[in-house]
């Protein structure tokens, strides 16, 4: 009988890099992604010719793994461009861990790149939603606004609660030299920002930036030889329960309940063990929903959990320590950057916002319109 928990700790991230975050005029998405891969390889002390497994997803490539492999000049033994939205990269980590453990590949790269900010805004190869498009939802924001509206109704949350998420993210960003938006931000600023789709205003929404990111994974026995401090994949799981927001079973509970439960089960740790929590905050409501669904607080308590600086610098739980998609970087699909912040914290390589003794770091991805959820748990050697 096979057991998914046998994958625990079998693979590690041995290299990580970002490239061109913020604004990169004159660069294409593929070029940015290629440079992120080179950066991650340099971090790992490996060469292009060492890569034999490649995973990539973007909003603008129909066949991203092939485009990237050709660009890098490599012929992988295995590749996948599986796309479940912004959480694709967490699911790629699970894929890569399986492929590494099975001996299908020896060195896996997972990559993302986008030039959406300088190319004129978010574009996607995604198809229109067949029974929704006629009503002109401005997705993704309309879908998240509907979820926020429902959450406020069911649990008595206010726009001030949502604003607390943006304020905490900005406070972290102000401590991160790499973050895009670092000016001070108050709850009043968030409430006064231009309304876009009630109840979400402009500052309830993620940034629109350029940027690329990549990580390199190997089997853990080989990771010991890497240049960078290995960070081990202790748990990973994914789930999805709809594509269109109208088909989401409940707008206030995501299937992060399921992905989180299984990822924690594989890792043998629980929410209370996590030293940092990185979650995909495309909109302020996300952070509240995922903290609840991943088990950091009860359903309906998230609105209070994020308030009074609890998830901000100096608070009880460090959440989105890079500043998140709200204030650090958000080039269309943010999942890679969520994981890289978890990995950097576990490596002790997060200048300005390093959490002391960050041994166990959760990185949770969200894709589509609260559609796909993928949870990864990363740890240092001592957590194995």
């Amino acid at each position: 009988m096979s057991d998914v928990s046998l994958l625990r700790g079998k693979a590690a991230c041995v290299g990580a890099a970002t490239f061109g975050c913020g604004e990169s005029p004159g660069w294409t998405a593929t070029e940015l992604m290629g440079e992120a891969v080179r950066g991650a390889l340099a971090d790992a002390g490996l060469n292009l010719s060492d890569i034999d497994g490649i995973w990539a997803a973007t909003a603008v490539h129909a066949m991203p793994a092939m485009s990237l492999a050709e660009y890098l000049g490599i012929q992988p033994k295995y590749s996948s461009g599986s796309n479940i939205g912004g959480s694709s990269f967490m699911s790629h980590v699970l894929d890569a861990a399986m492929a590494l453990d099975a001996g299908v590949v020896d060195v896996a790269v997972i990559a993302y790149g986008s030039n959406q900010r300088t190319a004129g805004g978010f574009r996607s190869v995604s198809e229109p939603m067949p029974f929704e498009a006629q009503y002109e939802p401005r997705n993704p924001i309309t879908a998240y606004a509907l979820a926020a509206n429902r959450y406020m109704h069911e649990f008595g949350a206010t726009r001030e609660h949502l604003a607390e998420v943006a304020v905490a993210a900005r406070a972290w960003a102000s401590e991160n030299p790499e973050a895009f938006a670092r000016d001070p931000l108050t709850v009043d600023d968030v409430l006064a920002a231009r309304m876009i789709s009630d109840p979400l205003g402009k500052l309830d929404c993620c940034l629109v930036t350029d940027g690329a990111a990549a990580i390199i994974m190997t089997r853990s026995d080989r990771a010991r030889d890497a240049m960078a401090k290995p960070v081990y994949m202790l748990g990973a799981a994914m789930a999805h329960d709809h594509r269109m927001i109208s088909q989401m079973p409940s707008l206030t509970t995501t299937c992060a309940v399921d992905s989180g439960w299984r990822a924690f089960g594989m890792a043998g740790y629980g929410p209370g063990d996590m030293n940092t929590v990185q979650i995909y905050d495309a909109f302020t409501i996300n952070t509240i929903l995922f903290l609840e669904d991943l088990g950091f607080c009860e359903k309906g308590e998230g609105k209070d959990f994020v308030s009074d600086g609890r998830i901000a610098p100096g608070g009880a739980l460090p959440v989105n320590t890079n500043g998140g998609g709200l204030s650090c970087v958000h080039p269309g699909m943010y999942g890679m950057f969520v994981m890289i912040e978890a990995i950097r914290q576990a490596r002790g390589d997060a200048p300005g916002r390093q959490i002391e003794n960050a041994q166990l770091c959760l990185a949770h991805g969200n894709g589509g319109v609260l559609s796909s959820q993928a949870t990864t748990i990363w740890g240092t050697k001592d957590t194995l």
Partner: protein
Amino acid sequence: MKGPEEIWRDHLAEGRFMLQRSVSTGAYVFYPRPFVPGSGEDDLEWVEASGEGVVYATTANRRSPEKGGTFNVALIDLAEGPRMMARVVGIDPDSVAISMKVRAKVEDLNGAPAVLWEVADE
């Protein structure tokens, strides 16, 4: 023979809002498919929707007057069970509220027939 989506749109073009119902289980299906999602019964028949619904979630998409003005997007729980995205009209887009009872009508929206909803008389 057409697929269920085109049949549904043909009904809509005739001013009829139709749902599918499984003869054996009584389960209603929307959006249309050749089978009941998740369980697979393929004994679906077309039935007229009651036109009764309740607002499950709502938002006002802000848009400048020159581009057509702010408009409502809502999720409506149909009396028959399924949920659909739609628009509540005849009321300020940001006055639509969760739990409002609404009634369906088929009217043109941006050049094609659509299911729109109005606040129901109590």
